[in-house]
């Protein structure tokens, strides 16, 4: 079972929901796929036991054999090559690692080498297995790193994915292939606008979803009517509470001081189990 936690708008509480949910389950994996700004470890404080570089495959040209025919430049859909009279310029940040240049070079002068774009860290806290990706500052391509974080998913465990904000390729790469997506929002026009975009995205991906309303206002008729009219399941409401905000600011998962939420997260998990069973 893979459950991703996404949002559209940033700062709505994805990491809060992902970490607290993982802490309420037995034997879970938590994957921080917000590789541009990973924050789950601030709250989880896992013991990191393994670190390895995350790499992409990029071309390397053997100038001994290159005859500057320009095929590499012509076949590259991402404009990662420029050709000078006696030199081929390569811009690694543009490269998607598709392998077209090395495959199609008529002289066979291009081989692929590993270029580091970030780091993957693996750790443990009690019975939670933690994996996070960290994109190196200045690198542009989050998706290959996100895919490498996700390659650590153990199908025998429940995996919780903390996704990046937005609805573009990093978010899609993170939530793709989930069995369920939790969309976290807040009851502001910004939150609701971006929730709508996030819903369209998970619908396009064919992933069942439900909403967690964070910083919920009591008796918020406007959002309640919206969810009812669009038949959107609301899985949990977390009220606006200064104490929760303070715990967040110092990196403490709020279930540690609000134990009543442990049951609520477990109910949420059971709801997801039941609803995905029906779909399957």
């Amino acid at each position, binding site marked *: 079972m893979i459950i991703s936690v996404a949002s*559209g*708008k*940033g*700062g*709505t509480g994805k*990491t809060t929901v992902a970490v607290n949910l993982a802490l309420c389950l037995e034997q879970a994996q938590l994957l921080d796929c*917000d590789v*541009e*700004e990973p*924050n789950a470890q*601030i709250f989880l404080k896992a013991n990191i036991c393994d670190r390895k570089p995350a790499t992409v495959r990029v071309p390397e040209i053997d100038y001994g054999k290159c005859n500057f025919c320009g095929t590499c430049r012509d*076949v590259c*859909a*991402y404009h990662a090559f420029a050709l000078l009279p006696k030199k081929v310029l390569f811009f690694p940040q543009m490269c*998607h*690692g*598709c*392998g*077209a240049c090395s*495959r*199609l070079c008529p002289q066979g002068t291009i081989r692929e080498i590993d270029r580091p774009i970030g780091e993957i860290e693996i750790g443990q806290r009690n019975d939670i297995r933690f994996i996070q990706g960290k*994109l190196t*500052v*200045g*690198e*542009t*391509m*989050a998706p290959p790193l996100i895919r490498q974080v996700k390659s650590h998913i153990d199908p025998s465990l429940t995996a919780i994915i903390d996704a*990046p*904000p*937005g*609805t*573009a*390729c*990093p*978010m*899609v790469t993170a939530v*793709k292939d989930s069995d369920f997506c939790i969309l976290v929002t807040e009851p*502001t*026009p*910004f939150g609701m*606008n*971006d929730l709508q*975009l996030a819903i*369209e*995205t998970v619908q*396009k*991906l064919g992933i069942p979803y439900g909403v967690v309303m964070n910083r919920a206002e009591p008796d918020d008729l406007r959002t309640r009517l919206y969810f009812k009219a669009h038949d959107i399941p609301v899985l949990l409401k977390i009220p606006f509470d*200064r104490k929760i*905000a*303070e715990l*967040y*600011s*110092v*990196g403490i998962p709020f279930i540690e001081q609000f134990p009543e939420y442990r049951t609520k997260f477990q109910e949420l998990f059971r709801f997801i189990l039941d609803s995905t069973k029906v779909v399957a």
Partner: protein
Amino acid sequence: MKQIVVISGKGGTGKTMLTGAFASLAKNKVMVDCDVDAANLHLLLHPSIKERNIFKSGAFAKIDPVLCTHCGQCSDACRFQAISSEFAVSPIACEGCGLCARLCPVNAIRMKENTAGEWFISETRYGPFVHAKLGIAEENSGKLVAKVREAAKEIAEKNGATHIIIDGPPGIGCPVIASLSGVDLALIVTEPTLSGLHDAERVIDLAEHFNVQTQLVINKWDINPEASEKIERYCESRRVPVIGKIPFARAVIESVIAGKPITEYTNGPLKNEITKIWEVVGC
């Protein structure tokens, strides 16, 4: 002309709130929303769209099932697992490299140009506004950002504007780099939390990497004064001036619900602090 981008690393720290306030405070400027996959600034500026443009970018493969012989060369070569065992291409997984089309021995694969979104030139009561909407689950947000910025620059030059004010996306990846490159100032908005500090550190690194001058604002500073102090000390060590501290206020959420820039919704210390920030940023 001065180009200013508001970024944060972490999402939800108050970029759009602050950019919206600048829209009402700055005189002769062009406003830009570069958060193209989760745009919000239009909810404060209420644009009327004058010009709509299709954003075409990239391509995706399409396999003609009549010609396809199921030889499997395409799916073996595809690094993005975009071709299923039934030889259908997932347009979401396909990154448009075109290797499959070049390898197909029977020419059954065509690359189709992709419509990845739309961008708009609008009029608002705060002046011209350039914004965009990336298609659902699309890529190439960096290119769309570049497009929007190019259009804004043209308008600003034509109008003789003194400022281009850009609402940036969260994170440090492709669209942030596209929003940041070549600006005169990156204003970083953060919040006094461990996550806010961690993410601000990375976004300061990013601006430094691209040689962009930075200033920083702490939003909701009084939620955790100790953490705010920690951020201030950190900024001092990085020589990033902290040019303002905005207190937590209900009025901010209320102004968003009212669809107004905060400086038009409230008077008093909050407005004064943001006005002071604009005076530093805009000069």
